[in-house]
């Protein structure tokens, strides 16, 4: 590798050719402030549009200042990162950004976690020049079921565009208009709700300011909890317990299942249940569907289509409903664990505790923003009453716990309530990429081969590569499995299916990097894959610690079928646990 020698702030440094000034400076301990820059190195995303100009530095012999994030070093370069010229420019640029930013820090969702605010604090900005005559670029507020766009707070860093277009390949967001009026918006300035947005929330996860935030349901939740005529119950997704601790300064990967349950109880939920339970239920339905399709396929039925695709990720469902409508019959019809939970809670469980459907409020704690949208879908309502009333993100839960003055660290470890709180290890691993399919394999193997599966850990299905594949031996039948996380990777697998190149029997797809543990509602990981890896490890630790690790062995699931559903894919199951998909493609074509 060719090396380049240069001087940064009087320090000699030698770096490979192609290195940027910003990265070279880091090596000698000089941290140049950046704002629009984002390095999601492990996801192969380095966003360096050179737009904010906060990271400018002085390069000897150069006419103007250089953006350090996107200027490559050259031999003998002499760089000054904090000359007076640089400081004045940096401060002026920051003042310009602030001059077009609302001063709403008191009520802003990102306050305290805002890159722009942090930068203003660091630079000691006390006033905005010409504030009395400075016009603000204003844009209408756009509220969708999951994400709020408040573009008055947008600083045009364009990180969301990179996530939406380059990483997820969704293409819902791009810059429109120009100059002072430029904003990042869906095509033709549509509302997000009318666009191809999947609500994966990766844009929200990287937004440095309050321009993109989740729809807040904590206010509604507090009101419902305070309403004596309501019975408020909660379900928590597997990925939440592996990340919630980070919001309380615990190291990434700390499992806080028991403390989370305790906290939820103290918040006033009547019953604290586990989405892992309904994940086990999902495996019963989805696994049975897989086996059904597989055996019909093996017996030569030409009408059956393979591969079967998992359907528990709502971002992914939104993605194929708008961009792969020719393949709507391929995904499993099984509802997601969130929705299966809601459906069972408002029928089976409501009967058990003799509470009317309308008085039962089902709340979900999810690592996800698309879940907020999913529970509003008409398919998941009975007479207008939703199976799941609303969904609260991991971040929102943390804020609630803090609001309620609950000292998280000293909470005892508590257990979920029954009957919807018991789960197996298979339900837990839904939270990590590859987990759903591994859980399905554990059950499908035994149902198909009628043999006991001795080794339940399928290491070949785990990992962080964007696209993975493995062949599992079903007693002589090689079952080919594909896995993708991130919608850009999903697109590749789908295009292979479309062109007939795919030879998989089953594919698991998760919209977010790492699966749900990297969801749009989780504590911000800033692209640090180590955090994602630690969360994943926690998920598998919980799996390993469970006495039962196969969904079909969950006694409460067995009981549910005996008492209520009959058997997987029965008529009742179909009504309560399955769904159909909608062609949303017109959004792209006719608008």
């Amino acid at each position, binding site marked *: 590798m060719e090396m380049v020698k240069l001087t940064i702030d009087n320090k000699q440094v030698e770096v490979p050719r192609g290195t940027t000034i910003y990265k070279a400076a880091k090596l000698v301990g000089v941290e140049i402030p950046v704002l629009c820059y984002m390095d999601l190195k492990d996801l192969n995303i380095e966003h360096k*549009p050179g737009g904010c100009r906060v990271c400018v530095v002085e390069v000897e012999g150069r006419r103007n*200042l250089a953006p350090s994030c996107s200027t490559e070093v050259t031999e003998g370069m002499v760089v000054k990162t904090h000359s007076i010229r640089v400081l004045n420019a940096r401060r*002026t*640029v920051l003042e310009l950004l602030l001059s077009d930013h609302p001063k709403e820090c008191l009520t802003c969702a990102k306050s305290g976690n805002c890159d722009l605010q942090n930068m203003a604090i660091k630079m000691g900005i006390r006033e905005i020049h*010409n504030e009395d*005559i400075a016009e603000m670029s204003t844009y209408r507020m756009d509220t969708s079921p999951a994400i709020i766009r408040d573009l008055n707070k947008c600083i045009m860093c364009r990180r969301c565009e990179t996530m939406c277009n380059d990483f997820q390949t969704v293409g819902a967001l791009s810059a429109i208009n*120009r*100059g*002072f009026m430029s904003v990042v918006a869906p095509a033709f300035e549509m509302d997000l709700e009318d666009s191809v947005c999947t609500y994966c929330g990766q844009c929200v996860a990287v937004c440095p300011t309050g321009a993109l935030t989740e729809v807040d349901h904590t206010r509604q939740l507090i009101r419902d909890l305070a309403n004596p005529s309501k019975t408020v119950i909660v379900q928590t997704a597997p990925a939440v317990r592996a990340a919630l601790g980070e919001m309380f300064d615990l190291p990434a990967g700390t499992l806080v299942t028991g403390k989370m349950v305790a906290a939820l109880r103290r918040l006033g939920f009547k019953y604290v249940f586990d989405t892992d339970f309904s994940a086990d239920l999902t495996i019963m339905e989805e696994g049975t569907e897989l086996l059904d399709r597989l055996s019909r396929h093996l017996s030569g039925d030409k009408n059956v289509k393979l591969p079967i695709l998992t359907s528990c990720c709502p971002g992914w469902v939104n993605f194929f409903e708008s961009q792969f409508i020719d393949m709507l019959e391929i995904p499993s019809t099984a509802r997601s664990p969130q929705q299966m939970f809601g459906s069972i809670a408002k029928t089976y469980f409501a009967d058990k505790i003799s509470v009317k459907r309308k008085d039962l409020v089902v709340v979900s704690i999810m690592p996800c923003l698309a879940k907020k949208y999913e529970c509003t879908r008409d398919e998941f309502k009975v007479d207008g009453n939703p199976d799941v009333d609303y969904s609260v993100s991991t971040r929102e839960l943390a804020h609630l716990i803090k609001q309620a003055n609950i000292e998280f660290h000293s909470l005892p470890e508590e257990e979920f309530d029954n009957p919807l709180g018991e789960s197996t290890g298979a339900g837990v691993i839904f939270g990590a990429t590859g987990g759903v399919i591994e859980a399905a394999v554990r059950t499908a193997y035994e149902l198909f081969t009628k043999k006991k599966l001795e080794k339940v850990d399928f290491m070949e299905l785990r990992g962080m590569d964007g696209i993975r594949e493995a062949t599992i031996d079903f007693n002589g039948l090689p079952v080919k499995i594909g896995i993708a996380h991130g919608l850009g990777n999903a697109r590749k697998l789908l295009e292979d299916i479309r062109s007939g190149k795919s030879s998989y029997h089953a594919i698991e797809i998760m919209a977010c990097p790492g699966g749900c543990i990297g969801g749009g509602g989780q504590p911000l990981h800033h692209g640090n894959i180590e955090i994602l890896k630690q969360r994943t490890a926690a998920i598998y630790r919980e799996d390993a610690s469970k006495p039962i690790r196969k969904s079909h062995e969950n006694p409460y699931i067995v009981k549910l079928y005996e008492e209520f559903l009959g058997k997987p894919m029965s008529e009742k199951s179909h009504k309560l646990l399955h769904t159909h998909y909608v062609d949303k493609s017109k959004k792209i074509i006719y608008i």
Partner: protein
Amino acid sequence: MADYKIHLLVCGGTGCKSSESQILAEHLRNEIGNQGLKDYAQVVGTGCFGFCEKGPIVKIIPDNTFYTQVKPEDAKEIVEEHIVKGRKVSRLLYKDPKTEKIITDSKGMEFYKKQVRIALRNCGVIDPENIEEYIARDGYSALGKVLTSMTPEETIEIIKKSGLRGRGGAGFPTGLKWEITRQSPGKEKYVVCNADEGDPGAFMDRSILEGDPHSVIEAMAINGFCTGASNGLVYIRAEYPLAIDRLKNAIDQARHYGLLGEKIFGTDFCFDITLRYGAGAFVCGEETALIHSMEGGRGEPTMKPPFPSVKGYLGKPTNVNNVETFASVPVIINKGFEWYSSIGTEKSKGTKVFALAGKVNNVGLIEVPMGITLREVIFEIGGGIKNGKKFKGVQIGGPSGGCLTHKHLDVPIDYESLVAAGAMMGSGGMIIMDEDDCMVDVAKYFLDFTVDESCGKCTPCRVGNKRMHELLVNITKGNGTKDDIDRLMNLGNVIRDTSLCMLGQSAPNPVLSIIDNFREEYEAHIAEKKCPSGVCKALMIYEIVPENCVGCTACARACPVGAITGERKEIHRIDPSLCIKCGACMDRCKFNAVIVN
């Protein structure tokens, strides 16, 4: 084919067309037909003659008679008198405003005397819609020469030695750019002609494409041969419909003649050209933004390096040159680099086309040798300031350039001298201001343009220029404070220092150069709340001079807002808090009693 004895060249540029030159040409043809002279005289629609001030132009060949401001109804007289009887129509001839003498041949006119037309060599001379006329003027001989007798390296060497530099504004050495593109690895390369001309008032690229499209096509093919590209793209703004039509027509003809397409001149060289239309964003003249726009993306610039010569259109090496640069290439090949480099100054060779506009007598398109002074351009070619007013300043380089003043009149026009004086060559806009122009208002005008045209990608350009503009608006409203000049200078310098592309980096130039050269005008607006030129409305105060007022009430009746009070035969007064400064009272008063302070 008829052997015409007389050719009537009628300007068919966009300017003259809008003054009915097409109808004029039609009338001339009809009259010639009526006189039975169809095989004797021919009407030819040409490109721009440049002397737009006096358009529409009709030039009669072979006697070189140059008729100015010709109307369709003059056609009959021209044919009957000049063509049939051989008598010049004297009322349509050009009269020198200084000597009052009639000049029949354009060569004798001040406007043309000091011009050297290289890029514009065929504009106003040939029919741009007829490839044979271009060929008859050595057209495509340079391409033939290069393809059949020279290597790409030899050709690039000629361009390098000629000293030709990019005419789009930055002045990068053209030959060097060609060499870098040639040396960039890659089988697939592209030649791009930047025809996204956007400076307010500038129209040289349009005129070349309208008047001599083949010169650009030929040069692009030569460039393709030199760099190893077989695809050419012209990025042209959709608001140039005539240029687009003529270019399309020229490309079709060139294909028909085998000058584009496969095996050109019987060699293995293949080259073809397609058009891409711009939607009229100024920033798309910046080459990286232009490339993104061609690729179907948002037209906004990206960091350089990588330069397009290394990584351009579709990620392939791409040679981007401006129209005027290309138009100069075939002549250089034909006449040699020695000839070309003998024109101009040490570092700026050849000629530059300028669009002369504003308060100058001879508005139009001119091509002058590098090194000519501003004084020669404005006072000789331009014929001085309109209506005998005093010269105040000249904005060179469009909204990216600077405003120069009296003390710069003897600055030679070349890349380095203009920059040293605080302006820049730019693409060739030259707007002349006189004593009636308010320089703060001029700065505001240009900044208004760049604020509107900023792509919004980088903070200093998106927000900074807006903030500077707000300060200027505030000053012209009389609300400026004494710190404003310092604020403008700091903001301007930071924007220059930190913006991503040249649009942002150069946007503060008009403001900063006007502070340099006309600081007292800013100060008058700020400290005295006065606009010395009487342009900034908000600073005007209409008053009635008691001695002159006879109390006729005419002004009060004319006032649309009821700001004037006074009884009949008594002195009237204007309430400044109501006055909207429309000037109706002043127009109406017969006694010079209304004045502006």
